[in-house]
């Protein structure tokens, strides 16, 4: 099944990426699509946006998730179940549903602006959705809200498998909580940190639902992601499947390169 629905389309996509034309009327044009890619400003903007999300959002989210997981792993902590459930709860929402909720929360007159004005943190409402900079910030906040709890659960469940005696020994040796965290927790969790980094990276590279439903990729193309661009090329504008496939392959190449880098970084220090 996986070969039918993953690998066959992969090969098809590769063939398609050398063709061009409208709809199903396609001819071979060699590398034309790939040449077009590098002078396509919309594509370059989409790549830039996606990388901004990637570089800012993924580290922030994973550090936050790890931090919360470590706090929740404390045996003497009360209401642990409540905190865990509350923080994991965003994970059950549909990407579309929460995106729409966030769109209204971050509206010009929305609840977030009201709150910030009432706290005197800002004097003027922020144009969250319509300003190119704040629109990106809104998307980043939204994704962080949705996926931090998801990653936290992975960290929490591996933390629970860690033998407690290691920490006790470290404590007797006089290691501070800080040292324990960096010398014991991080090295032990390395495989799972690598796993979440890779899945989050792939997730961000495929970002679609949020941008479509919060900002529609706008203002201008300021929040457009690569996936949304592929979708637009194939199903919104006059369909150009060949060029869309070329753009798709750019994602495959990016995933490959990033995964190799992450594996190298993760594997070196073992």
């Amino acid at each position: 099944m996986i070969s039918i629905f993953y690998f066959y389309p992969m090969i098809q996509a590769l063939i398609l990426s050398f063709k061009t034309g409208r709809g199903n009327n396609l001819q071979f044009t060699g590398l034309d699509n790939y040449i077009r890619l590098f002078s396509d400003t919309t594509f370059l903007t989409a790549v830039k946006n996606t990388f901004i999300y990637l570089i800012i959002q993924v580290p922030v989210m994973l550090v936050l998730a790890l931090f919360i997981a470590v706090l929740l792993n404390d045996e003497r902590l009360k209401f642990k179940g409540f905190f865990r459930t509350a923080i994991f709860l965003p994970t059950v929402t549909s990407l579309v549903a929460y995106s729409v909720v966030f769109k209204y929360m971050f509206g010009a007159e929305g609840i977030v602006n009201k709150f910030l004005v009432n706290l005197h943190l800002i004097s003027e409402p922020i144009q969250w959705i319509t300003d190119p900079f704040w629109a990106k910030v809104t998307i980043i906040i939204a994704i962080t809200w949705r996926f931090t709890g998801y990653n936290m659960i992975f960290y929490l469940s591996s933390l629970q498998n860690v033998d407690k005696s290691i920490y006790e020994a470290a404590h007797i040796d006089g290691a501070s909580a800080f040292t324990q965290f960096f010398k014991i927790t991080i090295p032990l969790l390395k495989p799972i940190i690598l796993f979440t980094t890779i899945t989050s990276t792939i997730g961000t590279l495929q970002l679609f639902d949020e941008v479509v439903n919060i900002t529609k990729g706008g203002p201008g193309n300021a929040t457009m992601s690569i996936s949304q661009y592929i979708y637009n090329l194939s199903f919104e504008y006059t369909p150009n499947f060949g060029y869309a496939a070329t753009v798709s392959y750019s994602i495959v190449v990016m995933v490959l390169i990033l995964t190799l880098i992450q594996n190298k970084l993760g594997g070196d220090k073992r």
Partner: protein
Amino acid sequence: MKTKRMFTYVFLIIAALISIFPFIWMVISATNQSVDVTKGTLLPGAHLVGNINNLFSSVDMWQALWNSAKISVVTTVLSLLVASAAGYGFEMYRSRSKDIVFNILLASMMIPFAAIMVPLFQMFAKVSSVVPFLGIDTASAVILPTFTTAFLIFFFRQSTKMFPKDMMEAGRIDGLSEFGLFFRIYMPTMKSTYAAAAIITFLNSWNNYLWPLIVLQSPENMTVPLLISNLGSGYAPDYGLIMSAIVITTLPTALVFFMMQKQFVAGMTGSVK
């Protein structure tokens, strides 16, 4: 030590509040009129019933809920069967090509969906002309490419590593067939893994947006996420109505999660090693 404790609680309370707040606001907004929603009111209104009535009379919400339920349940059942059998097979039987096949499977996890959606769409478009009930604009077209995922096979294989293999030997000696071993011993013992996998698959399927957006075209086949996305894109969207639709969509997933939370956490703990 005291201040550190205080800090932990304050931090967790803030994190929990931020996580829950959009839910509270979503429920409050479902009771308000459109104008109040855009103004970000925090007071519950008296329009919940009105909003729900409007929702069900303006769009075919029942149909969308039914479509989503059908797709999610079928996907979940098929997924669990296939992925658990595969995970079981990978772990329990020895074969030389096993690791190669498994690595290829893992590689498929790296393929972003955006990279295959165009050829996949073309594939189903071709199928449409031959076998209409498998092609574009059918529930099967949504289910088929989504029900086998390498992630789930990986998840089952990891959990199977902890499975007490002696039980299998005992079963074999007692004369159970290979199928019997799988259905009568493996399945019941791995209950919490199945529960965790079921939640993950159900949520993913219920919430899936991009692929249904591509293959489902006629309004009567629409799933709930498509419907919600459409509701917001009109000229004068009724925000109260949209919020009540969102509450209705989120309820089943939240319920599934709350009901199976214990098994879910147990299943996750067993698999991530």
